């Protein structure tokens, strides 16, 4: 008998249809992967089960959990279910915990509420579950506050809250999307163990086919609020009968066509476009006592490398390894404590903003979150034209408009889009706008900080194609900063692995990813989800 059964569920928010005739089942001890792009309705399905939907939502159909009709259950009955038999883990661990309450309070609260246990008993149980999710008392006493924990540790606390009372069903909505690959692998392992220990059902929502292939027994593919395909994971993902499943699978392993510039002759003699020599960055540490001197924290430790013009290089590493600090220094947004950075032979150190104009013209940046990097009250024309103030002569209005049109067209948008505002674009189009902004000064170097990690797989494939295309057409050099090895594999010629502020390994992308030598690189490669490998492993397990 199914633990959760969703039949013909249709949902609308303020009159807008969100789900249409959705069917889902989860048996006890089963992992169901729900895959789909943003707007596919996978989170809304989960929130329907929890009855935590936004206001003005109307649901039709049947949702039965453990014999209870969820859609008809009154709020008090839902309060008894939530956090007891029904747990949920969310995507963003950094904001999922109340900042003013200790982790002990937050875990024990649900235990006390559901079991009526007194404070010491509830705290003892909270202690036990925190130990279980990998937060031992010696380092993580109950009195810790969320801000004293890293993202991965916070996600463990959220899992502890959801699993404290051994739920029959756990819903995990993109539980690892905000984490780096090594943390992702650890959290997925933890979830898998909890499923086995308690015969818990798990509804794992993800846009990442490889993660689902690795974890789920069965998979449901959704699009635009409709279930496209449903079945055993290995069958669905290997046979890819449904065209949309095939499209998703292809997009997630997409490698843009690109003539490799390193095959051109005479690259050895080329002078580097960017050279970073012995760069170190210290941050002031926290003062320990009244009179003790604070010890500095070394974010970047004696890093040297150079970029050949036309190359695409990936800088990969786990969160907190110093890659973003290094990128900020290359972009002259931060100054190295020691060492030197040269762009096109020009040293960036010790220059005023005015003197940096020439260098800034030649290097531009693309950020992860295109929406956050735009002023929502400005039209695209103004947003894209922004870097033009770096030119020595101010362009006339018509000249400016021409350059904006040209930039928009080269990223696949229309010149008429310049009259629009950022909210009128989809996520992928917004990332195109931010690329247009980056190329408008005709730079030589583009630094891209996780440029596709906020995008859906099919959009991601299109943006990677765009990067590859611009690389050749405009002779751009790229520095991709990412923790996602599939991005590195798809688009870069070389990869540098960063760990604890140092570059521990570098070389041609294929070579490093096939045969990683350093511990850090090995850990990254081993943890990275891989669709083919996961399907093969699943098939092997099914045969055995």
């Amino acid at each position, binding site marked *: 008998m199914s633990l959760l059964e969703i039949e013909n569920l249709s949902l609308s928010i303020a009159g807008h249809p969100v789900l249409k005739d959705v069917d889902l089942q989860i048996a006890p001890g089963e992992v169901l992967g729900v895959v789909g792009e943003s707007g596919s309705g996978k989170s809304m399905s989960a929130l329907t089960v929890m009855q935590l939907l936004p206001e003005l939502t109307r649901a039709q159909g049947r949702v039965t959990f453990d014999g209870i009709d969820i859609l008809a259950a009154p709020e*008090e009955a839902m309060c008894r279910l939530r956090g007891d038999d029904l747990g949920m883990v969310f995507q963003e661990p950094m904001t999922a915990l*109340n900042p003013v309450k200790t982790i002990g309070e937050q875990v024990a609260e649900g235990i006390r509420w*559901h079991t009526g246990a007194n404070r010491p008993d509830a705290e003892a149980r909270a202690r036990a579950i925190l130990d279980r999710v990998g937060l031992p008392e010696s380092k993580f006493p109950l009195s810790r506050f969320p801000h004293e924990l890293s993202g991965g540790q916070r996600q463990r606390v959220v899992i502890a809250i959801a699993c404290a009372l051994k739920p029959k069903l756990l819903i995990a909505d993109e539980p690892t999307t905000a984490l780096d690959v090594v943390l992702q692998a650890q959290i997925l392992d933890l979830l898998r163990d909890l499923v086995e220990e308690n015969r818990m059902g798990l509804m794992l929502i993800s846009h990442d086919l490889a993660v689902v292939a690795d974890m789920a027994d069965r998979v449901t593919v959704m699009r635009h609020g409709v279930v496209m395909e449903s079945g055993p994971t290995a069958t669905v993902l290997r046979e890819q009968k449904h065209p949309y499943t095939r499209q998703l699978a292809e997009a997630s392993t997409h490698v843009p066509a690109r003539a490799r510039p390193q095959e051109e002759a005479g690259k050895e003699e080329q002078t580097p476009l960017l050279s970073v020599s012995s760069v170190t960055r210290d941050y002031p540490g926290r003062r320990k006592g009244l009179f003790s001197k604070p010890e500095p924290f070394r974010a970047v430790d004696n890093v040297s490398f150079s970029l050949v013009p036309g190359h695409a290089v990936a800088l990969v590493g786990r969160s907190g390894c110093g890659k973003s600090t290094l990128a900020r220094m290359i972009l002259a947004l931060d100054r190295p404590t020691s060492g030197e950075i040269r762009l096109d032979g020009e040293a960036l150190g010790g220059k005023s903003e005015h003197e940096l104009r020439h260098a800034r013209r030649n290097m531009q940046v693309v950020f992860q979150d295109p929406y956050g990097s735009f002023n929502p009250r400005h039209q695209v024309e103004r947003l894209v034209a922004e870097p033009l103030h770096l030119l020595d002569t101010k362009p006339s209005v018509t000249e400016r408009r021409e350059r904006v049109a040209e930039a928009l067209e080269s990223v696949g948008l229309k010149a008429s889009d310049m009259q629009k505002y950022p909210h009128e674009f989809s996520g992928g189009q917004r990332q195109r706008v931010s690329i247009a902004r980056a190329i408008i000064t005709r730079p030589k170097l583009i630094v891209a900080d996780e440029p596709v990690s906020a995008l859906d797989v099919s959009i991601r494939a299109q943006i990677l194609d765009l990067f590859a295309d611009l690389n050749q057409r405009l002779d751009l050099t790229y520095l991709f900063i990412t923790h996602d090895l599939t991005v590195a594999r798809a688009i870069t010629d070389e990869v540098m692995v960063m760990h604890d502020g140092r570059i521990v390994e570098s070389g041609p992308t294929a070579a490093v990813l096939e045969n990683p030598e350093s511990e850090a690189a090995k850990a990254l490669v081993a943890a990275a989800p891989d669709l083919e490998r996961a399907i093969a492993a699943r098939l092997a397990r099914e045969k055995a």
Partner: protein
Amino acid sequence: MLVYLLKRIAIGLATLLVASAVVFSVLEIIPGDPALLMLGMNAEPDTLAALREQMGLNQPVFLRYLDWVSGLAVGDFGTSYTYSSPVLELIGERVMVSLPLALISLFLSTVIALPVGIFAAARRGKPADTITMGAAQVGVAIPNFWFALLLIYLFAVWLRLVPAGGFPGWDAGIWAGLKALILPAIALALPQAAILARVTRSAMLEVLGEDYIRTARAKGMPRRIVLWHHALRNALIPVLTILGLQFAFLLAGTIIIENVFYLPGLGRLVFQAITQRDLIVVEGVVMLLVATVIIVNILVDIGYAIVDPRLRTRR
């Protein structure tokens, strides 16, 4: 935290010193001779000169400033020109009225505003929200003296529950004193409560949209508990900020209400002192208010740290 507090106190003292210089020089610049005012327009030049000598008005400005500041440091605020009694004593008498008045109205405004703001936020967009916030809008708009007149008419003239004005002094008994202060306290508190309720509501609404509220709900906590246990404390930071500002206003910005109720408070003292060019009193009151604002700000910052643990470690 201790280091931080000591630092804050040191900065506070430096601010006081700067404020003293500004206050002194501004009052020095504006026209008006206190000695002439005391003696009247027809004073004999000899008498005037003698009085100026006696009041120390003939000394160089800098020396008089030093004299005044060093007096402040040991608690000697000087002697009033018009009342001929020590400034500190004058201020002390008035503070005995103004401070309880400010505290009572701050208390009233908080106990009215917080539940109303939370109530409105919990029922966002519903009629209850619209009505309470509409009432708050009216509360902000109504001048407090007009409201004071209404209160006098209703409770003093019609129901005869409390006196219409005046202050019997605390010697007449605590109850008599409180009875004289309750109407002005309400008149002062309501507009403040209206502002505070709006701030509370918007702070709560912001917090209620946060991810951790959803986490708490997913834990099975009912809405009501989430509201009081998870949301309120996170919403308190902006509320504390407004409370700090309101206290400073309630202590000295109450001159209109003091006049309506004929209360001998700080506001009237400073108003009279200004019209009579009793500069030394004005200076003393202003310094007292500067010190109050500084102390309240430090208290508000300590309040922040109590509410939000992230603000404790950063210092």
